């Protein structure tokens, strides 16, 4: 998949992953990487940005196996932003599909 395409949706994808379940950085990366190959280094700045914009919050969760990890939890603002993004994506998807289809059948 094109890097450029991925880039545009990555924010939404990350946010939706957090919305499903509180997760830590590497976990989020591995999850997304399972579906579409991405560079680990693109995830972290996005997480930072989301936190900064208040779309999610962080907390440390202790573990018996090792040092505590920083978990990301979606905020109310994040939930509503995710809703908006999903609506946008649907619209976008339709538009793009239409464009591609017309292209094909012309």
């Amino acid at each position: 998949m094109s890097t450029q395409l991925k880039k545009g949706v990555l924010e939404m994808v990350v946010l939706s992953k957090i919305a499903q379940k509180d997760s830590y950085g590497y976990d989020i990366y591995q999850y997304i990487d399972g579906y579409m190959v991405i560079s680990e280094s693109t995830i972290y700045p996005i997480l930072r940005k989301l936190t900064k914009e208040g779309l999610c919050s962080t907390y440390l969760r202790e573990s018996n196996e090792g040092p505590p990890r920083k978990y990301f939890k979606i905020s109310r603002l994040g939930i509503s932003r995710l809703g908006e993004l999903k609506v946008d994506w649907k619209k976008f998807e339709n538009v793009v599909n239409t464009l591609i289809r017309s292209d094909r059948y012309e």
Partner: protein
Amino acid sequence: MNKNEFLRQLEKELGILDKVERKELLDFYEERFYNGIYYENKTEQEVVLELEPPHVIARNILDQYGIKPKHVSRPEERYEGVKLGSIIWLGCVDLFLLSWIIPTLFGVTVAMFGAVLGYLPVFTLVIGEKSTYDVMIFWFLTGVFILLFNFALVILDLFIWTLKKSLKFHLDTFKVRRRAEFNKKMNRINVDGFIKKRKKLLSLKRLTFIAALLLVGIFGFRLAINADNIYGLYVNQISLTEIETYDASDDVLNSIPWTVDVDVDNMKIILVQSETNEIVVTREYQEEPIDFSMEINDVTHTISVMQEIEDNYWSFNLDINLEEILRMIKPDVITIAIPEGIVLQYTELETMNGTIKVVGMTMIELVINNVNGAVTVESVDVLTNITINSFNSNVQVEDSTGSGKLFVKTANGRISIAESDFQRYELDTENGRIYLEELNVENKDGVSLDAETSNGRIVLDNVYVGKVDLETSNGNIIYNNEDQSFDVDYSRNTGNGSTTGNVN
């Protein structure tokens, strides 16, 4: 690469970002390492291999900030402010280091090119009437000046380099905008690079350099083998004379001792017997030297010839011109003639470059110091010691006596002693042979003799000294005595060489 190295490098690559931001991003990677190590039981190296290299990570991250990698290449473009500490440090460097380094280098550079200009008078050698030697000297000096010019270019580059570095240091300290760009442009300025970029110029430079080496080599060699002729030729050209005399008849009658003290830069010194009852000091010269004095003092009974020697070799007085070079070929000559009846007290002769010759003298003690030029002592009788300290000289002592020690030390030169009689001998050279002949033959009363050389043979012929110690690293040792009944406590040591002779 381990975890710390990885994080440090990443931090460096992210230098453009502000501290808090950088810290947060690095935290992710730190956690990432913990995750690998504690939760997945991997080593630091394994985690590093899983990750992209720091510069790629940095590029990806910065890309998300809309920063193009080309802006990130220089770490100094950080958004941090100017630090007081670094300004103070800069001030100290300016005050204590640059304040003298830059003017000094500038002076040296100018002096070097000034010296190169000294080439112009060399042309006078081949204008108009010229001898073969003129032409030889001309080509030799041409070679020398080409080499000098090459050296001057190196010095110029050094000066430019220092200027650039100090300018960059200032710009960095004050975090001047766009300094990276400026530094880049500045870095292109240097002579060597300028020449290297132009193929023709480079080949010209190389060609002249090789030619210069050849010229110096070939004509240097030809000049060296004709040195005597050239010497004669140029000596006869210019010769001024200055004479001081003093009628010492009374002193001879009353046997009043005199003192001789000569300390000059580049002059030949001759000390001989006068044919009359006059003390005669003669100087043959080409040009009046600076800070020079020549005096016969009849109150203190002292003959002194003095020259203030510039001992600061680093002041780069490189005003080389033909006269200076000729003076090296043909130094001034100081001749001091002493009436036969006068006994000299402590006598010290000192010159930097020049031969020293002492003939037919009676004195209490003789000390000779020079660097270049042969030392000859002939028919000199001293009451105590003769001490000769030299560097690149052959030393010859002949027909002389003393009741003390004959001490000779030279680094590159031969030592030969003949027909003399001293109680003790201490002879030392680095690269040179030692020849000893007919010593203490009459009285056979020599007490001890130490002779040492690193490279050279040692030859003793009829040396009647009670205790002899010879040492050479490379060379043969030969010791023969006509009178074999004379008992010698003889020890010798040679690294590479044989020991022969009838003395054992």
